């Protein structure tokens, strides 16, 4: 029987709380999947707590409003329940989850007239922002051409954790992300905020590795620029 497939009693999760669940999932994803397949309510509750914030963040990059994004998250979990019986662990659970969300969000985004599939006219397919994002950072012509216009300074003043304690700084980053073209926003959210591997992102979003890196580079370059005034030594 299934008694020993799931080595931790469900009540333990509740007792340990959400943060430790993440580590436990890493330890034994197969056990978690089996518990979901059995319909273990406390495991579902804990997994849903763990991932819904990430799903919501990603959903918001596909659809025009937070309310619609919340609906997409709900639909995603319904998709998980429908599909969990067939989940074979060929990808990680998280990748599978993000892929379900992406499919639902794309369908929803098309209905809401926001999401345009990659490669179609008007889709901003590589998130192109003109010739080079770096142009503005360098001296354009004459003597000094190719030199940094404003040489980057050290940012050692604070750790990222400390920088994020400033609400202004955090809001500035969130705004910078939400202001990105959708596909850049999706890639930076998955890669840097959620820590998904480049290979898995290509799988989730159905894009090439080169395209993934181009989008990531543009997105990171813009976020770095927004962050600069907040973490420059001496300035605030």
């Amino acid at each position, binding site marked *: 029987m299934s008694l020993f497939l799931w080595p931790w009693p469900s009540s333990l999760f509740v007792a340990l709380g959400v943060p430790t669940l993440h580590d436990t999932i890493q330890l034994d994803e197969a056990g978690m999947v089996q518990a979901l397949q*059995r319909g273990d309510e406390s495991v579902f509750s804990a997994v849903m707590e763990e991932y819904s*914030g990430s799903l919501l963040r990603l959903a*918001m990059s596909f659809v025009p409003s937070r309310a619609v994004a*919340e609906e997409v998250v709900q639909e995603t979990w319904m998709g998980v*329940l429908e599909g969990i019986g067939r989940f074979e662990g060929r990808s990680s659970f998280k990748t599978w989850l993000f892929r379900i969300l992406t499919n639902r969000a794309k369908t929803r985004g098309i209905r809401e007239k926001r999401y345009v599939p990659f490669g179609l006219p008007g889709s901003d397919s590589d998130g192109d922002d003109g010739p080079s994002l770096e142009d503005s950072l*360098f001296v354009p012509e004459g003597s000094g051409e190719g030199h*940094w216009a404003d040489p980057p300074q*050290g940012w050692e003043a604070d750790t990222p954790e400390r920088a994020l304690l400033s609400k202004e700084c955090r809001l500035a980053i969130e705004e910078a992300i939400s202001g990105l073209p959708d596909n850049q926003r999706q890639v930076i959210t998955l890669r*840097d905020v959620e820590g998904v591997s480049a290979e898995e992102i290509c799988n989730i979003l159905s894009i090439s590795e080169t395209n993934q890196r181009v989008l990531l*580079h543009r997105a990171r370059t813009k976020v770095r620029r927004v962050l600069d005034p907040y973490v420059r030594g001496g300035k605030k």
Partner: protein
Amino acid sequence: MEKNFKQQLMGYMAGNFTCKEVAQLITEYLEGSFSLSQRVRFQMHIGLCLACRNYLRQMKYTVATLGQLPAEPVPPEVKEALMNRFRTWKKEQSSQGSPADSQKPS
């Protein structure tokens, strides 16, 4: 003058990666998609150029900061609705006898 000399030295030693190229290629470098020789050229430039070294650190800092962003808060009503839908699903599953029951040998 000194800058020109340094620039020349870097051009000679670092296989002509300019500062702008370093900025343009920084994600390729960080994502590990460089060939060995590109990596060496990049690192040589970084070793000689403080501005690019700072830029690289800033990029790493940016990535680390993004990784520390707090989770998007999910409203309790949404979670409640989800748990209700879960219970409905489970009831349907057990009345159909699968897959919630699929642990028994077939």
